[in-house]
């Protein structure tokens, strides 16, 4: 399993070169590899659906026992098949669709990286590894939406997708870490997904926060209300991207994670309820918004939002088989429709479904893909979409009580609107008249029509004969979510669904009738809808815009306030912050007085030394001549040197004496041509600075006293002194530390010195060039 991810990454690295060397046909090779990987996963089908998940570990940091564990169960197998299978067809499609684009190599590289990340995401059995892949899909998605980066709108929408999913990602990170802590209890965080302990999480006080944060992360990725607005905007991406990322895979990452955590979290109080509530709202809102639009991809995007809502809702309802069926059905028909939409837009030269007419006369193969995909989207028998919709309605009704009635109405309404949308996008432009009839239009080349027709046919075949792999996959998928084999048999056969007539079937038929009716009267309906959605300017997208605007504006204000270019205000801020932090930390210590050191003996000499230092320090600030200040400074230096002599550090004393002398020499050499010791500041400003300085001074004093009184560990220097003679053959311990124990440190310090000297040398000897001199 690791190999498949690595192969895709390797392919991504090679793709740009491949395209340059062998041109368009590189796409065919890449697509073939991707389909071969699909084949490999398909060959594991038997093992996994028999109820034996495959677990593989690749060691990563063996010394820490960290490995990357990949898990292939029904859930991840379904996703892996969709990612690689649809990915392969999309790559094939791209070789024709973007064949002439100069960015083809870049496109392949990004798309393959995305596929690898997505595979890693669904296979990872570790929350952190999963999260890394999760973020990678956000980043690659950003790059793909902004593929046409010279268009301003593409950049804007790419940013929007990145900001929304990125913020969600941050919430998710916090959520899964809290989850791991809650699950691990006293033994430390537990990041392995399969080892998460539902009981421990239920008991933990962190549970609520972790569930909310995780849900925000998943909702933002899967475009669930109120984060739904980024997905339609992401349609700036080329059609293959929309087909793979924004219908079949990436947006389903949120759904995937919800499904993956379902066995762990379904006991949590508001987990299931929020899934149902947000899912149903998204379903309805997405379906309604889809009917507002006439552009191919916008319409399909809102329809995808609706489908994502359905999936989230189904998981919340505990209808795992329905979720699995709908997920597979949706991936098949939506990817197909997106690809056909891309081709149709190319050929017709417009994306307005209302304008295009009789496109099917020229697109002799793609029209069938559109029709079959559209029927599956509409949920008409015998397509697999029908089974998905029937199971959805049934699950809604199973909720019981008032909830069942509300859900049934919502699902029925959404279904009717989806029928409308599907006629609009898949039937109208191809088979009905319209003002815009492209002359001389030709069907696209085979790589472009092959993928859609395969996907569309698959939707029909699986609908007619679900026993061909569909049933075991759905059962195995459901078992992953339930944590145990499903109790009820999965019934996807048309015979079960159509006979005897049932309430779901009735709702379904009604939805189709209403959908067709709405389509007939679409112009009055649309104007009504436009009025209804007038509140959209207060919607989430405007909120997002306002939020971004406010953030940028406040960043500007903050930057102007803090980064005002005045060194003194920087220093003030730094000093005040440091003072406040240390003061607060000191206030939090219990029984501060117990840490204070004892006063000890005091000799007149000590007092003299201290007074010298104090008096020199104060006079250094007051004296109005430079030389006086320098003299005061060296007074301090010499006093400290004397202190070193008295307290057992002759080395330090010698160095201090030498350095003080040298500094005086340098000052004297330089300063007599410096400006006079001017007083620039006002009295007020001086007073403020005195307060700030005294604040820091008192904090430093307190800190020093506290540090003197508290030794928490035996100093390392005991060892250094004990080993100086036996191991390091030196009797001057300070020197042994400098040149032996901490020699690398000293090496760094002499380098700093060398750099300072070179700096001085350069400042004094390098002069502006003659031209620069002349222009002054």
């Amino acid at each position, binding site marked *: 399993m690791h190999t498949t991810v690595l192969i895709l990454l390797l392919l991504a690295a090679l793709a740009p070169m491949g395209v340059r060397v062998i041109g368009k046909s590189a796409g065919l090779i890449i697509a073939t590899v991707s389909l071969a990987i699909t084949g490999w996963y398909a060959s594991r089908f038997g093992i996994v659906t028999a109820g034996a998940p495959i677990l593989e570990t690749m060691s990563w940091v063996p010394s820490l026992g960290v490995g990357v564990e990949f898990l292939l169960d029904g859930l991840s197998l379904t996703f892996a098949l969709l990612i690689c299978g649809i990915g392969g067809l999309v790559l094939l499609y791209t070789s024709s669709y973007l064949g002439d684009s100069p960015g083809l190599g870049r496109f392949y590289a990004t798309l393959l990286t995305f596929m690898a990340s997505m595979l890693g995401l669904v296979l990872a059995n570790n929350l952190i590894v999963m999260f890394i892949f999760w973020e990678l899909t956000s980043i690659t998605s950003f790059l793909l939406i902004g593929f046409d980066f010279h268009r301003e709108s593409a950049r804007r929408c790419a940013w929007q997708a990145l900001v929304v999913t990125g913020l969600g990602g941050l919430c998710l990170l916090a959520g899964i870490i809290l989850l791991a802590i809650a699950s691990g209890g006293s033994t430390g965080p537990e990041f392995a997904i399969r080892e998460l302990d539902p009981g421990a999480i239920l008991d933990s006080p962190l549970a609520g926060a972790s569930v909310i944060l995780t849900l925000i992360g998943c909702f933002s990725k899967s475009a669930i209300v109120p984060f739904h607005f980024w997905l339609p905007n992401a349609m700036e991406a080329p059609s293959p991207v929309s087909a793979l990322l924004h219908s079949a895979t990436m947006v389903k990452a949120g759904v995937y994670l919800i499904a993956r955590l379902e066995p762990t979290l379904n006991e949590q109080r508001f987990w299931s309820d929020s899934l149902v509530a947000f899912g149903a709202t998204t379903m309805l809102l997405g379906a309604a918004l889809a009917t507002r639009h006439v552009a191919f991809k916008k319409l399909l995007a809102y329809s995808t939002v609706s489908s994502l809502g359905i999936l989230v809702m189904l998981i919340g309802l505990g209808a795992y088989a329905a979720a699995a069926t709908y997920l597979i059905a949706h991936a098949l028909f939506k990817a197909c429709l997106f690809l056909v939409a891309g081709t149709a837009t190319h050929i017709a030269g417009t994306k307005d479904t209302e304008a295009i007419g009789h496109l099917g006369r020229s697109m002799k193969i793609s029209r069938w893909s559109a029709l079959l995909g559209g029927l599956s989207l509409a949920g008409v028998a015998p397509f697999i979409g029908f089974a998905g919709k029937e199971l959805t309605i049934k699950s809604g009704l199973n909720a019981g009580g008032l909830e069942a009635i509300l859900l049934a109405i919502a699902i029925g309404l959404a279904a009717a609107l989806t029928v409308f949308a599907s006629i609009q996008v898949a039937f109208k432009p191809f088979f009905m008249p319209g003002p815009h009839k492209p002359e001389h239009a030709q069907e696209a080349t085979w790589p472009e029509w092959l993928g859609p027709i395969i996907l569309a046919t698959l939707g029909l075949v699986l609908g007619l004969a679900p026993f061909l792999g569909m049933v075991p996959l759905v059962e195995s998928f459901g078992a992953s979510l339930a944590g145990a084999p499903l109790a009820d048999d999965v019934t996807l056969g048309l015979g079960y669904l159509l006979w005897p007539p049932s309430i779901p079937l009735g709702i379904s038929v009604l939805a189709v009738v209403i959908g067709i009716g709405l389509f007939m009267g679409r112009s009055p309906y649309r104007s009504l809808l436009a009025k209804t959605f007038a509140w959209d300017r207060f919607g989430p997208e405007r909120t997002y815009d306002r939020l971004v605007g406010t953030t940028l504006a406040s960043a500007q204000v903050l930057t102007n306030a803090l980064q005002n270019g005045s060194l003194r205000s920087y220093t003030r801020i730094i000093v005040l912050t440091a003072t406040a932090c240390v003061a607060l930390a000191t206030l939090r210590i219990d029984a501060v007085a117990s840490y204070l050191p004892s006063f000890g003996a005091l000799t007149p000499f000590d007092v003299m030394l201290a007074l010298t230092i104090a008096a020199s320090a104060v006079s250094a600030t007051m004296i109005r001549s430079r030389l006086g200040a320098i003299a005061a400074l060296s007074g301090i230096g010499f006093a400290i040197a004397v202190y070193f002599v008295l307290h057992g550090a002759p*080395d330090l004393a010698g160095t201090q004496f030498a350095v003080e002398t040298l500094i005086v020499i340098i000052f004297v050499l330089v300063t007599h041509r410096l400006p006079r010791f001017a007083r620039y500041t006002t009295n007020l400003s001086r007073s403020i600075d005195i307060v700030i300085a005294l604040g820091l001074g008192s904090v430093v004093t307190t800190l020093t006293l506290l540090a003197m009184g508290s030794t928490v560990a035996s100093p390392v220097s005991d060892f250094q002194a004990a080993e100086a003679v036996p191991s390091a053959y030196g009797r001057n311990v300070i020197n042994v530390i400098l040149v032996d124990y901490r020699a690398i440190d000293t090496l760094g310090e002499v*380098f700093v*010195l060398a750099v300072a000297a070179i700096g001085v040398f350069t400042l004094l000897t390098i002069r502006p060039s003659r031209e620069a001199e002349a222009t002054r």
Partner: protein
Amino acid sequence: MNSVIFQVAARVLLPVMLLLSVVFLLRGHNEPGGGFIGGLVAASGYILYALAVNLPESRRLLHVHPRTLISTGLLIAILSGVPALLVDQPFMKGKWIEVTIAGFEGVKFGTPFVFDVGVYLVVLGVTLLMAFTLEERYQ
């Protein structure tokens, strides 16, 4: 600073201070001293000389440019870490051999001492480079 006494004193002090600095360097591992203070003392000698007599004379007595001292010192300091690498030990781990110098048997000679020589040269070079450049420009 044209005081004759000062000039004479500087002429006498330079060799004394150089000798003292070498003593500091050599005995630094066992008694107070070491490369840092040694380098500073030697530098003070030359600076004193340059102030009292003149700069070109002082430069001439140094024989090499201070920059050369810095680079040589850094090189020596780095190289002193290499022997440990050769026997597969961490960079800069001290290595010692016993040598016989001027009749003293069993004198320990090791890479930390070599390192200290490097430090001595760098400190000397740094201080002189700063002081000489400044004097040249502003005196």
